[in-house]
């Protein structure tokens, strides 16, 4: 029999799966979110309850016994939504409980290296998005941005924008996952969005977009034209929402 742990897809759920892997004899061969479960005759599915207390225990154990940095890396790896990442996370945690803080240096280990490189990819896209997000001003002065990143990162970019736009209302809408961050000058939440939003732009919005397009065009040095370099720094997949690139 092959054991599949099935969790609800949340980070807390995943922490519960880790908890279970420690305290029951039925060790998992795969950990899958409910959405990704595989129907298979040979599989024994073990459903994981999402218990906030147990999640907190695992969370704190990783934070204290391994390191806050390790916790961050695990969280970013989880946000990557890459198939099979849950088992890598479990293996990373297992090793981490054995060797402690030093785990991050042990890059020759496969699980460590995998978590490290996925963490780097997610952080890289997060950093990119801090620059590439474009807000448009709506009629009621709310700033609204659309994105469709590879990784599920609205929750980890929100704090960056809250710091700088603390005095604005804004929405960052992940069109790929249909979720949005809402910020109202005080608090922020991440919510699922169903259906289309009714969007009316501010009357000045187009002027600023035109100014930006003009700026983008005239700041480039024609004699040094280098579209290849441009694309390697700013891959085409991000152009869809870039005003200066026709988005």
């Amino acid at each position, binding site marked *: 029999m092959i054991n599949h742990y099935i969790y609800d897809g949340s980070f807390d759920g995943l922490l519960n799966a880790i908890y279970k892997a420690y305290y029951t004899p039925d060790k998992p061969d795969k950990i899958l979110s409910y959405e990704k479960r595989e129907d298979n005759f040979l599989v024994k599915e073990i459903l994981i309850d999402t218990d906030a207390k147990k999640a907190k225990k695992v969370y704190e154990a990783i934070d204290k016994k391994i390191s806050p940095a390790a916790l961050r890396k695990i969280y970013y790896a989880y946000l990557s939504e890459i198939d099979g990442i849950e088992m890598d996370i479990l293996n990373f945690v297992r090793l981490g409980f054995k060797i402690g803080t030093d785990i991050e*240096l*042990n*890059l*020759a280990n496969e699980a460590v*290296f995998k978590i490290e*490189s996925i963490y780097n990819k997610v952080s890289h896209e997060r*950093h990119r998005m*801090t*620059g*590439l*997000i*474009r*807000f*448009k*001003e709506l009629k009621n002065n709310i*700033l609204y*941005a659309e994105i469709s990143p590879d990784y599920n990162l609205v929750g980890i970019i929100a704090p960056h*924008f809250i*710091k*700088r*736009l*603390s*005095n*604005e209302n804004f929405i960052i809408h992940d069109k790929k996952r249909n979720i949005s961050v809402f910020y109202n000058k005080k608090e922020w939440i991440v919510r699922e969005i169903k259906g289309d939003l009714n969007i009316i732009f501010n009357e000045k919005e187009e002027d*600023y977009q*035109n*100014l*930006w397009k*003009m*700026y*983008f065009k*005239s*700041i*480039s*040095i*024609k*004699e*040094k*034209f*280098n*579209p*290849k*370099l*441009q694309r*390697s*720094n*700013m891959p085409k997949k991000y152009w869809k929402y*870039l*005003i*200066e690139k026709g988005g």
Partner: protein
Amino acid sequence: MDVLDKLRILSDAAKYDVSCSSSGSGRKNKKGGIGSASINGICHSWSDDGRCISLLKILMTNYCIYDCAYCVNRSSNDLERATLTPDEIVDLTINFYRRNYIEGLFLSSAIIKSPNHTMELILNVVKRLREVEGFNGYIHTKAIPHADKRIIDEIGLYVDRMSINIELPSENGLKLLAPNKTKKSILTPMGNIRNRIVETREEKKKFKYANSFVPGGQSTQLIVGATEDNDLKILKLSEGLYDGYNLKRVYYSAYVPVAKSPNLPVLDSPPVIRENRLYQADWLLRFYKFKADELLDENMPNFDLSLDPKCNWALRNIGIFPVEINRADYNTLLRVPGIGVKSARRIVAARKFGPLNYDNLKKLNIVLKRAKYFITCNGKYYGMSSMNPEKIRKKLIYGLDRNIFEKQLSLWEMGGFNDKSLHI
């Protein structure tokens, strides 16, 4: 004239200033204010020439009383001119910032009426951004040669970075091409800024609430290829600026022929590869503890355009190599071509858990294309049959210039060449 036209003219005029960085300052947002700076800087777009766009980089005006031969804004040039008002600059900055187009403002200017008058106008803009708008994003302004210490000292309290461009790497060059400027008119304000930065840092240690002055440091720009100055001279100048003037960055700009003058060289295209080599060497000075004299000397005063400065240095010092990856200390690892700061750190960390072999290095994402000729792993050499610098050189150049090869291949596929003419 409307703002759109002004923006077109004044950003076009600012485009040759290559500094675009928004790094070095961790300015925080204040209550009710807008914006903050990111210590590592953030790029918001990349223009068609592949350069990072981080700041709204504009001239306040392109009317100029000076007549520098290499510059489009020189007074004798027949050119569409414009001036942005402080209101317009403030509005553009804030609204571009809110939409996340930019990290902040880089305000430069040609010289209108007098250096001091120009600096007063710049002061007006930055003061309003900080005090009226509560703007805490990044601000970089130009300091203008001949400007008074008094004004520079005041502007420095509001901005994150100041730069005064040297442009021409020698006094002779200045005489020939920028007769209104002198070495002294550039180096004096640069020295003032350095001194104020050092003083305020000391004050800040004593009084927590002392004002900071140009927390992101100062930078400058050198034009490459408008004068006869060789790479050794340019790199020595940079080294002096880093050591003596505490500069954060020196930027290099391949000269783009914008004017005809008997004192200017005739170029088909800007010397961009040379510019790139200077950036690589500059990097070696700042992060790899190289000295200018190690990279170039009177017998070889210019960089090899076909191979990067670090590879070149390694080949000329082939006796030091190969180094053993499991024993070499951090600084020695840094000198291996292809091994950068990140890779060196990774190696030092990972080998604590046991000796590394060649496959381990690959797993650590160490790029071995260049490094393999200069290292051993557990005593084994993976480069060639012998360490012959001439042979390694050929391998490196061929290996690194693949792009050119591929480009020609793709031209060929498109029917640009017939197969007989392709002899590489």
